[in-house]
């Protein structure tokens, strides 16, 4: 059992590129920590620095209180699952799983056999033990890679996008399986992914990285409800959060499609700014015709022309295009690009109840609660309405 402490870790490449820039992170014993971010944010590099495959330029890495900066990967006693599994193709599944045990030595053949069979049983690989990796399916190979990791008493498990090569259905199953295994074994786990669903569902805590800089470390719930800046807000949640430019005049804020009075507590946070971004999650909107009178009165209702409606069965998405000033358009463009998506046009995405009768190309009346929105500073991108208290206390125990 172990904890990993990362202190001001920096990775600088020969050309001066800072892949990991001054990242500090405490990973507690038994914690499931997710490193997430768009491609090129340094999450994999950070993981490889922890396991020892990348040199540390500066900063400190402590495992169980011991400085391991200069230790070789083999001396760090960590287990890693690679994105492409990196199974040994010339060895059978049994020998693949037994490989780390054989290297460490000091174990009899019977002991090794017992351990490998135990791990294989956990992962339902028993019947494949004599086969070579080349004859296995993607999911089975993935399990062999996990078997190789869990067979020995490693201090921590490190996963580098382990599910990204599986198809969507299998990925979902493996995700649950992985979570169940981690909970049962209680081993400290660091998991790199670019998939926010994996990040939200698996992690005790999630660390969001952007261009080598740590943006926020928090529980999934906190990330979702209290993102510290526009980057985190835009990264977490699907479909992504709407960022709507708003101009302030006294206590009134004007959005392209509605104006309303700011709630008193946020007015203070905004200060004397004349422009902010109002961020509203798609699922915070409601079809006003379905809301009761009391609810309507507590929020803002507005009319807007719905362009397209996508019906998914359990919910539906409505798209409402709107015009924004040109200079803001480019800014939003920039942010979207960093989040690995292509912004086609300025539009509001609204998630509606499946029972809503709103159809394509009609005017609809929508409702939202201004207290459920966030205001972001247009220059720094910081969240102005951050609640200092954690949203819900579900931090790891």
């Amino acid at each position, binding site marked *: 059992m172990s904890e990993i402490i990362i202190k001001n870790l920096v990775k600088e490449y020969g050309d001066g590129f800072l892949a990991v820039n001054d990242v500090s992170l405490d990973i507690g014993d038994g914690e499931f920590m997710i490193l997430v971010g768009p491609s090129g944010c340094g999450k994999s590099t950070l993981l490889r620095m922890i*396991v*020892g*495959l990348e040199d540390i330029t500066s900063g400190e890495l402590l495992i169980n209180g011991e400085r391991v900066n200069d230790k*070789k*990967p*083999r001396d760090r006693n*960590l*287990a*890693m699952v*690679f994105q*492409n*599994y*990196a*199974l*040994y*193709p*010339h060895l059978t599944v049994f020998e693949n799983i037994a*490989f*780390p045990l054989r*290297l*460490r030595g000091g174990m009899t053949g019977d002991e090794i056999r017992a351990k490998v069979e135990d791990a294989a049983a956990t992962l339902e690989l028993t019947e494949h033990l004599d086969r*070579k*990796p*080349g*004859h*296995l399916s*993607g999911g089975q*190979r993935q399990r062999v890679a996990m078997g*190789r990791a869990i067979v020995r008493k490693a201090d921590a498990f490190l996963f580098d996008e382990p599910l990204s*090569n599986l198809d969507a259905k299998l990925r979902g199953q493996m995700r649950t399986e992985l979570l169940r295994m981690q909970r049962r074994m209680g081993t400290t786990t660091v998991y790199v992914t670019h998939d926010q669903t994996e990040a939200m569902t698996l992690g005790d805590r999630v660390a969001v990285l952007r261009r080598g800089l740590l943006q926020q470390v928090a529980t999934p719930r906190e990330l979702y409800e209290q993102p510290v800046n526009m980057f985190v807000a835009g990264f977490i949640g699907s479909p992504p959060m709407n960022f709507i430019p708003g101009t302030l005049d006294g206590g009134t804020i004007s959005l392209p499609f509605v104006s309303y009075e700011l709630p008193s507590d946020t007015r203070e946070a905004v200060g004397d700014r004349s422009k902010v971004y109002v961020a509203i999650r798609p699922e915070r909107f409601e079809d006003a015709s379905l809301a009761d009178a009391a609810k309507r009165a507590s929020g803002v209702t507005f009319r807007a022309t719905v362009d397209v409606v996508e019906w998914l069965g359990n919910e539906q998405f409505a798209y409402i295009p709107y015009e924004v000033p040109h200079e803001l358009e480019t800014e939003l463009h920039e942010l979207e690009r960093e989040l690995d998506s292509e912004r086609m046009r300025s539009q509001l995405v609204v998630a509606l109840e499946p029972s809503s009768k709103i159809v394509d190309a009609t005017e609809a009346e929508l409702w939202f609660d201004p207290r459920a929105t966030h205001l972001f500073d247009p220059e720094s991108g910081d969240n102005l309405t951050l609640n200092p208290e954690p949203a819900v206390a579900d931090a790891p125990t």
Partner: protein
Amino acid sequence: MASRRSANWWTLWGLLILLWALFPLLWMVSLSFKDPGTFRGSTPQFFPEEWTWKNYDTVFSDSLFTSALRNSAGIALIATGLSVIVAMFAAYAIARLDFPGKRLILTVALAIAMFPQAALVGPLFNMWRGLGIYDTWIGLIIPYLTFALPLSIWTMSAFFRQIPWEMEQAAQVDGATAWQAFRKVIVPLAAPGVFTTAILTFFFCWNEFLLAISLTSTDRARTVPAALSFFTGASQFESPITAIMAASVVVTIPIVILVLAFQRRIIAGLTTGAVKG
């Protein structure tokens, strides 16, 4: 139907090429079984009128041939072994490590491979005599190594490059030292490449003629290709051709066996299944 017809065409072409390639071999085998005194009969025939082992008796009772066979096997095996070991480490370093002068090594290796052997024979002859290794095994092994290494390094570094980096990294995380990772993961994976290179090197050393004839003078180190040119008939009126052919058949057999034995290993892509399909 169209694909069927084109497949037939391919078969036909294949057979033609096979015939083209095999005809000299067949001719060689056929000649080796003909009677040395009468094979130049008035009515030439492809197959011998009378099959005889006489030529084989002649070559195996001739110490010129038997010692040459011993020399050939020894020199080729030693040169191949050394070349494979040296090339394996060199190729691994070139494929995996980033060190100054890497490009230079590859370029020089290629330059050596392109250097005409004939230009080296004269100087080597003089140098070897000065060093006292003229007409010795080592005197042939050294130049064979020089000419075999560049190709071996190039082929093997290509094989090493195909092995995903992650294999080694995974081994290191699993607790292997660099040497263990190399021996237990990289070498088995590169085995097809090593075999291919070894066989190519062996062929080169086994068949080499120019250096063999120039740097040897007696049975001490003369290899088979060189020895063949010294064959004479039983009398001066008898042509040594049939005996030479018998000797040629004998030296061709190991090569055929090698290729048949290892072709599966050469062809087998051992890395299938290492990473995602």
